[in-house]
């Protein structure tokens, strides 16, 4: 095993996800410790064109795999591509985004190379001769600092929006196409299509701004208030479980323990009490604003800014004020 690092660049809809550059940043941290090099693998339709996005960041070699067998995501197929390259390059470390694809692909691939994987990491460092990661456990109630042992390939999935993107250093980025080497007929699970979320807004896990509503929204139609505000930022609309269970919002919008874990720059909670299971999903947001009628609502203990008031008064005014400045 070498000290080299492989970054998996995920393609969705023909585009490289922005977490890829954050992973390159993380990979550089490890490379500084091991003295190894950073390479990348981009798999899927459009991989070759997207490879340019990782050029000039100090990435030595970018392998692109784009053939019939990788046109659609399949855990088995993609894991074969990744694991084969890891074995061939004798990589010591593999970095993936903690996304739907990265989590699934990482865990299947790490089994193929009998390595070790740390999921959903929020920090990554190199200390005392070894890589060290920090990851939340118990739904973010605690953090662990972990280090690999045993000299196996180390897979790390990193949550998007946690590391800064890699900066241009001017060099590197030789692109090399590779065949997938997959027999499509042998694949037993494969994506056939993607049904997009209604509304056309970004996913809560990817948005920089989230406007979330709780039980207090009273009605699905009232979510329009939150949508209007979210759209000013190109942001997402989120919801508490109470709002989802009451049918005011769709399940994919749910934030929290049984919903999604989000990490936006700005999270505005409207009529959400701040139950521990909701906090599990949004407490790492950079700035949290709470709007609640009840000055004693627990959400204010986690918020950075709070307004005690009726959301039906406050939100429309907020939308108007934001409109003025954006």
């Amino acid at each position, binding site marked *: 095993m070498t000290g080299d690092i492989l970054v998996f660049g995920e393609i969705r809809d023909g585009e490289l996800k922005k977490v890829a550059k954050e992973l390159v940043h993380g990979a550089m941290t490890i490379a500084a410790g091991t003295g190894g090099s950073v390479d990348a693998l981009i798999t899927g339709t459009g991989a070759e064109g997207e490879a340019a996005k990782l050029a000039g960041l100090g990435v030595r070699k970018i392998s692109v795999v784009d053939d019939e067998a990788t046109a659609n995501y399949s855990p088995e197929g993609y894991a074969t591509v990744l694991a084969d390259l890891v074995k061939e390059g004798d990589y010591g470390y593999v970095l993936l985004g903690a996304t*739907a694809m990265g989590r699934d692909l990482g865990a299947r691939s790490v089994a193929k190379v009998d390595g070790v994987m740390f999921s959903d990491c929020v920090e990554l460092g190199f200390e005392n001769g070894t890589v060290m990661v920090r990851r939340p456990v118990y739904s973010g109630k605690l953090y662990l600092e972990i280090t690999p042992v045993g000299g196996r390939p180390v897979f790390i999935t990193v949550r998007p929006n946690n590391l800064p993107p890699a900066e241009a250093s001017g060099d590197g980025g030789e692109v090399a196409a590779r065949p997938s080497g997959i027999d499509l007929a042998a694949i037993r699970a494969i994506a056939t*299509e993607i049904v997009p979320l209604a509304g056309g807004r970004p996913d809560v896990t990817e948005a920089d701004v989230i406007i979330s509503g709780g039980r207090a929204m009273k009605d699905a139609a009232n979510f329009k208030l939150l949508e209007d505000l979210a759209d000013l930022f190109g942001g997402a609309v989120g919801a508490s479980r109470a709002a989802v269970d009451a049918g005011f919002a769709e399940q994919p919008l749910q934030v929290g323990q049984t919903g999604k874990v989000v990490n936006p720059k700005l999270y505005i909670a409207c009529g959400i009490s701040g139950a521990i299971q909701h906090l599990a999903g949004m407490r790492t947001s950079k700035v949290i604003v709470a709007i609640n009628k009840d000055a004693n609502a627990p959400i204010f203990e986690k918020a950075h800014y709070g307004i005690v008031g009726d959301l039906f008064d406050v939100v429309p005014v907020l939308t108007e004020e934001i409109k003025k400045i954006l």
Partner: protein
Amino acid sequence: MKIIVLLKRVPDTEAKILINQEGTGIREDGVKFIINTYDEYAIEEGLLMKEKIGGDSKVTVVCMGPGEATEVIRTALAMGADDAVHIADDALTYPGPFTTATILAKAISENGFDIIFCGKQGIDDDMAQVHCILAEMLDVPQVSVASTFELSEDASKATVGRRIEGGDEMIEVSLPAIVSCDKGLNDPRYASLPGIMKAKKKEIRNKNLADLGFSEVPGGGRSRILKWMPLPKGGECRMVEAEETSDAVRELVRLLREEAKVI
């Protein structure tokens, strides 16, 4: 159809999680334990499938966890699962995903299966790895984070909606397979009173590592926990107050812009 449901015993979502005095784990005293939240959707999907197919279909719960896990296993049996395998061994403290998957793979391959339902992740270690590693070990495909599940007429394959960023990815999967379940897939039933009575008579096969042919904990020695850390303390909430809503909102916008610099 041999339907298997994986069950993990985890601390209640409401539980206050504190680090023990030695700093080597969590304090378990006073913590209530429950069925891993996502595993409830797995149990329900297994039961729905059994009801749909009928015949001699059977739902078997497989749980690796301490002796006390019998309680959550009984709950699953009371919901309607037919029998269970409970793997417990004192040597298993904080088993990692490879250890868990290796042991589960052994226990499951003893009786074979057509489909395995499990949760999308344990709400304790939040790894979401076990089912993928298990799928590789058992040489079957997996579909992670299912929000819809449609079995084909001849029960040889399924169309699974898998939650991804911004939508659902539709996956065609042939059986046998492993499907990890998300909230929204179904509405887990409650255990009925007759169900609870019946559960008492259902079989739980207890196994330890030796029973499964392991002379030591397999798959371990891959990582070391350096530190258990409490959450960093949040700052004070700055309450924005004013007579008029519009003044308070204007002040909030100013703070977000000039102080927090997020807009």
